[in-house]
């Protein structure tokens, strides 16, 4: 199917890349259908709205820089995802990239959870106070060496 993306313009994607977000994202509740795309720059992904091309978020797997990360979300949120098995769960963090890209941050407090089998997603709020909305990715990577 053909879609229009913020990063790459028109793209032909597989229907299996389409994820339903029944509640949208926090503050963007009106956008309920997204495509999950590999970014041309690894290890990033794009979460691209199918309704409005300008609505697109950069995602990253938080375990790359926080191997100890667990989303710690409410059971109710997990129920919404209708998981048959834990392996079906994908966990992403939304990335904010400022002009100084070295200061790019990942939001570990508002993880994006996706049931990859049933193609259902939601943004949750972590109940773990250690996770904040801005974790500087390069700082976290540097801290890993110790």
């Amino acid at each position, binding site marked *: 199917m053909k879609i229009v993306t913020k990063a790459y313009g028109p793209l032909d994607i597989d229907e299996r890349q389409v994820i339903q977000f029944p509640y949208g994202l926090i503050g963007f509740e009106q956008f309920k259908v997204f495509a999950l795309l590999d970014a041309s720059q690894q290890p*990033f992904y794009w979460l691209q709205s199918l309704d409005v091309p300008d609505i697109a978020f950069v995602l990253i797997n938080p375990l790359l820089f926080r191997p100890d990360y667990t989303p710690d979300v409410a059971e109710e949120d997990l129920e919404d995802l209708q998981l048959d098995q834990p392996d079906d769960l994908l966990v992403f963090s939304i990335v904010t990239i400022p002009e100084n890209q070295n200061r790019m941050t990942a939001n570990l*407090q508002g993880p994006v959870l996706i049931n990859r089998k049933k193609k259902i997603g939601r943004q949750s*709020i972590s109940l773990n106070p250690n996770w904040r909305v801005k974790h500087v990715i390069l700082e976290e*990577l540097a801290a*890993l*060496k110790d």
Partner: protein
Amino acid sequence: MIGDSIEISVVDIKGDQVKLGIRAPKKVKVYRKEVYENIQRENRAALQSTGTLPSLEPFLEQQKKKEKP
């Protein structure tokens, strides 16, 4: 009490500040409004991300090397 299962109590009073405790079953989500608003704000900031994505590869490579004994 709110319903049968949510209990709100005053934990502490200091000057003009009142600390409330909320006891709710794990199934019920209780968030502070600020947390919700922070995430909302961060989502908006994320939308303004620069179009070109940075390369993390050199940093991840470094990491892999470190992990090897």
